[in-house]
């Protein structure tokens, strides 16, 4: 299985602080994606990083990928209360695999 596993399971911080969550996986990947989920409903795509990329930015989000360690991290800088949500990584295996594997997610609470 190439299941993504997020760490930590839960994270509680104060507004303005940075939040870092990690994702580990087991086999070679084509790409890795991060999603956010509010209130147990639909997921929203945040960032996709391909296996030949090491870092990507989108606004206050920074994603890194270390294929040698089979891990990725999502950094949210200057967090806001509105960032409170669950964050999931999804792993797409190498060519031929079109079914992503999602981890259990990291529950982030940002206190105002």
């Amino acid at each position: 299985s190439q299941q993504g596993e997020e760490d930590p399971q839960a994270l509680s911080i104060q507004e303005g602080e940075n939040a870092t969550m990690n994702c580990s996986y087991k086999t070679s990947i084509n790409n890795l994606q991060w999603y956010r989920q509010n209130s147990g409903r639909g997921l929203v795509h945040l960032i996709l990083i391909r296996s030949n990329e090491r870092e990507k930015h989108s606004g206050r989000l920074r994603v890194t990928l270390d294929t040698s360690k089979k891990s990725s991290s999502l950094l949210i800088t200057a967090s806001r209360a509105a960032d409170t949500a669950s964050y999931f990584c999804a792993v797409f295996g190498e060519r031929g695999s079109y079914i992503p594997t999602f981890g259990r997610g990291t529950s982030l609470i940002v206190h105002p």
Partner: protein
Amino acid sequence: GAGVSQSPSNKVTEKGKDVELRCDPISGHTALYWYRQSLGQGLEFLIYFQGNSAPDKSGLPSDRFSAERTGGSVSTLTIQRTQQEDSAVYLCASSLMADWEYFGPGTRLTVL
């Protein structure tokens, strides 16, 4: 429409009844996924449709679960003889070829 839509948003049924959940993907998206998410858990893959190819049903938990996709667009997930353990949020997503997925808001199924 602009995004993936699902109906109904909530469904309460009695044990033993059949239910149908509907998903309208983004127009032009060839891939369609169904997932199940139990309370506080990650996403459990159920079934994957890609164009006119035979669907990947490897995630369906039992033969009570089935899905179809008509005309390469709308999809229906059917659960026969529902059980209490089927209670969950059922999420549909569509995408273009192993790229990021666009999720619908989900259907919350409660089996009494």
